[in-house]
């Protein structure tokens, strides 16, 4: 994407004031988005993102600058401007770039840019028809189609020089059901690090019906009860509980500065002994997977918690310095506009030994959260919240009537210790995760789990 000489000159300019590490990141990305509402294509947008980011380290401090231009004059000037923020003795670093191959874990079969847009619209139309015709209570269906091809190059003063291409595809299905002047919605958005073959092989029938089924079930549901009770969270997107309650607190972004409740707890029991949790960016073709991270490190499987004991964090180059620990291939960013930092990839609680039937049968009274919405966390206090998209009352070991509008709240450490059953039906689900380095694709996942007690926020008393 850039010549060796240009990269070397830019890195040299970046280090001209005493920086001890410099990195250049180039991104060239084409995006495609189509929105269908009510069965008709409402809007489309395609475009090209293009930019260069230059990062300099000096000890624990960093400087970052970006620009959309990649001519020699602009890059050298940008590097020099950034370097002005660094003060120190100039280190004599010889930059010796060696271009190395990237082991591609996300094999793409069909380049989405080579597929006619009318074919993409047909996929959307199919999803629309199935979702809309699911039930007469369905009054609106929106379909979102997205694909992108992101070409990146990363090179640094340690001699690393790599290029990679990331292709991702996603189909969002949102159904609205109406009844007696009330509306409820259901949502599903499967995605993968795949090309157009993703849409060809997708079980559109299943996802479209699920989105509508949730909306129809919820519009007929009464409000959720409130109070503290056992909560069963089903597999797939239920993994958002781990993502919010614990995952963010294991990112070096908050651990390095001692701001996370999990800082300094490696080797300690932080969760119930039946909990093992993994962050793995190297699972082929998964939504949150990548061959190399945005610092050029090969992705890997990181065990975060093993049998309840904290094993590791997700660590990027800059925070690795403060923590005096190794990097874990977890450094990510939304685009060249953000300096990268440690983030999650595909993060999940691993399979346990209970069957879903056992978990439900063993719960006398509580809430069953079949599908989760999103959530958020304050890493300093560990307080999290997330929304239940589809919930049910459990009584005497049986799933009873549906309830809507429930929110689950708690504190990270507390909930990890209260997981008292873990199922054997691990499933990954796709989401977008927003944090300091922007919004990035990430999987959450888990088998069905039970938390012995959580605060459920609803609108009815107990």
């Amino acid at each position, binding site marked *: 994407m850039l010549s060796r000489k240009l990269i070397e000159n830019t890195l040299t300019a970046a280090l001209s004031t005493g920086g001890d590490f410099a990195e250049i990141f180039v991104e060239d990305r084409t995006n495609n988005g189509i929105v269908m509402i009510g069965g008709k294509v409402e809007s489309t947008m395609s475009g090209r993102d293009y930019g260069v980011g230059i990062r300099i380290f000096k000890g624990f401090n960093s400087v970052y600058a970006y620009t959309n231009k990649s001519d020699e004059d602009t890059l050298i000037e940008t590097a020099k401007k*950034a370097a002005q923020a660094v003060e120190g003795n100039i280190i004599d670093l010889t930059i010796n770039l060696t271009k190395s191959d990237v082991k591609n874990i996300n094999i793409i079969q069909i380049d989405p840019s080579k597929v006619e847009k009318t074919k993409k619209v047909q996929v959307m139309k199919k999803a629309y028809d199935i979702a809309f015709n699911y039930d007469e209570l369905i009054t609106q269906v929106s379909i979102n189609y997205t694909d992108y091809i992101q070409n990146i190059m990363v090179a640094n003063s340690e001699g690393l020089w790599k290029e990679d291409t990331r292709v991702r595809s996603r189909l969002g299905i949102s159904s609205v059901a109406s009844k007696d002047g009330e509306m409820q919605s259901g949502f599903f958005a499967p995605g993968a690090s795949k090309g157009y073959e993703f849409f060809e092989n997708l079980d559109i029938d299943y996802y479209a019906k699920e989105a509508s089924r949730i909306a129809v079930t919820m519009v007929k549901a009464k409000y959720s009860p409130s109070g503290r009770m056992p909560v069963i969270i089903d597999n797939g997107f239920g993994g958002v509980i781990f993502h919010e309650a614990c995952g963010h607190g294991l990112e070096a972004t908050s651990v390095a500065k001692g701001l996370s409740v999990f800082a300094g707890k490696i080797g300690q029991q932080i969760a119930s002994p039946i909990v093992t949790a993994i962050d793995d960016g190297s699972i082929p073709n998964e939504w949150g997977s990548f061959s190399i991270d945005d610092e050029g490190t090969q992705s890997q499987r990181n065990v975060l918690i093993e049998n309840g004991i904290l094993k590791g964090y997700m660590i990027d180059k800059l925070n690795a310095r403060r923590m005096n620990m190794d990097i874990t291939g977890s450094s990510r960013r939304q685009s060249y506009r953000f300096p990268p930092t440690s983030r999650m990839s595909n993060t999940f609680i691993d399979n346990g030994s209970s069957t879903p039937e056992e978990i439900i049968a063993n719960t006398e009274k509580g809430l069953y959260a079949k599908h989760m919405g999103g959530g958020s966390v304050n890493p300093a206090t560990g307080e999290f919240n997330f929304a239940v998209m589809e919930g049910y009352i459990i009584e005497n070991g049986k799933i009873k009537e549906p309830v809507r509008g429930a929110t689950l709240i708690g504190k990270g450490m507390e909930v990890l210790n209260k997981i008292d059953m873990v199922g054997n039906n691990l499933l990954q689900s796709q989401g977008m995760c927003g944090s300091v380095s922007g919004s990035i694709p990430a999987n959450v996942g888990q088998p069905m789990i039970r938390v012995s007690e959580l605060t459920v926020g609803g609108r009815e008393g107990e």
Partner: protein
Amino acid sequence: MEMKSLIDKIFQKGREKGLNDMEVYYSAGSSLTLKVFQKELETYNLSESEGLSLRGVYKGKMGYSYTEKVDETSIDQLVRDVLENAVIIDSDDEEFIFEGSKEYIKVDSFNPALSNVSEEKKIEFVKSLEEEAFKLDKRIESVEVCVYGDGYGEIIMSNTKGLFLQDKSNIAYTYIVVVAKEGEDIKTGMAYRTGNDFNKFNARDIAKEAVDEALALLGAKSVKSGDYNVIIRNSAAADLLEAFTGIFSAEAVQKNLSLLKGKLNEKIASDKFTLIDDPYMESGLASKSFDGEGVACKYKKVVDKGVLKTYFHNLKTAKKDGVETTGNASKGSYKSSLGISPSNFYVEKGERRLNEMITDINKGILITELQGLHSGLNTVSGDFSLAALGFLIENGKISRPVEQITVAGNYFEMLKNIEETGSDLKFGLPGGSYIGSPSLKIKKLSIAGE
């Protein structure tokens, strides 16, 4: 001028390929971000960026495309994408390229004084912000985030119907998140300022606001579940309004995604509730003279003493409803297709201060922060159930801090149950819109806790 000649070349190419009306939206900007951690300038970020989008009508349908490589090599891609995108549109709604309004009211959102503040001064300021926070109380264990940033932006809108509009603005912001610790209890407090007058940023005031917030929450506990009289403090009420802003969009109404459909000129809220969209508000951070389609912006009351007066329109939705556009077309950036959003959008303030409002409450909750606003609410149904922080009110006084609760209700019902609006109108962090509210006293909301 260089940009004009590039735009002309794009239009020329478009015409050759069969596009009728076309419009270019160009934006460029620069930014600086400074973060301090433990007395050191930990992060120094700067940027220079630009992007250009093209939209054009082909066989009656509007296609969009954009690029961040703003030069002649991108012309072919821009035109090709517009054509390909226009062809697959099958919506019956018409989108327009606008020839321009008769008159535009000038809005000055650029303050040259801000561009003249030296970097040293900015660094000194953000360092002092951190220092002040630590000085205020020894229970301040760390400063999680301490940031100063500023940015400059300019846009050009130019179309084949002769419209040519330009605008420029600058803004500075600062925020701090402090962590207070007492025993095992940890609480955070946040404060921010935005505006384009650097001299108005007072490090001590900002630090104190964040520190007070964190300290006040130390020792918080949950409360018993039940229905409570609730005051939602100004900034939290503004956050909630922001999350529900979409219900006022004519687009959502026309697509059957807003329960305000068919409610024009009907009472949708309490008499105390008046909602204003004022693009010309003094020191409004979303002030502008024209909207995303080049239409002159307008002042309007969206809700007047509880009665819904209008939805937000762009040219497309206005034509469909047979009304005039309200000048609320929005273009989030060159990357976004056309949307609808307010400008400076706020709940009109009432008479009394927050502490006076509290004296009327025998038993209730003051909510100071709502969390999970992107997930814990349903804009279609109006239902919300959100994690919250705040204080218990007993016998007209604040008795203790509260945590680990959720507040649940329905936004449409809540609007009808507003008993009082405070005098403390406050705006949230600006995005495309700038949204504000005073504290709102609500007759009844469900609180879940112990």
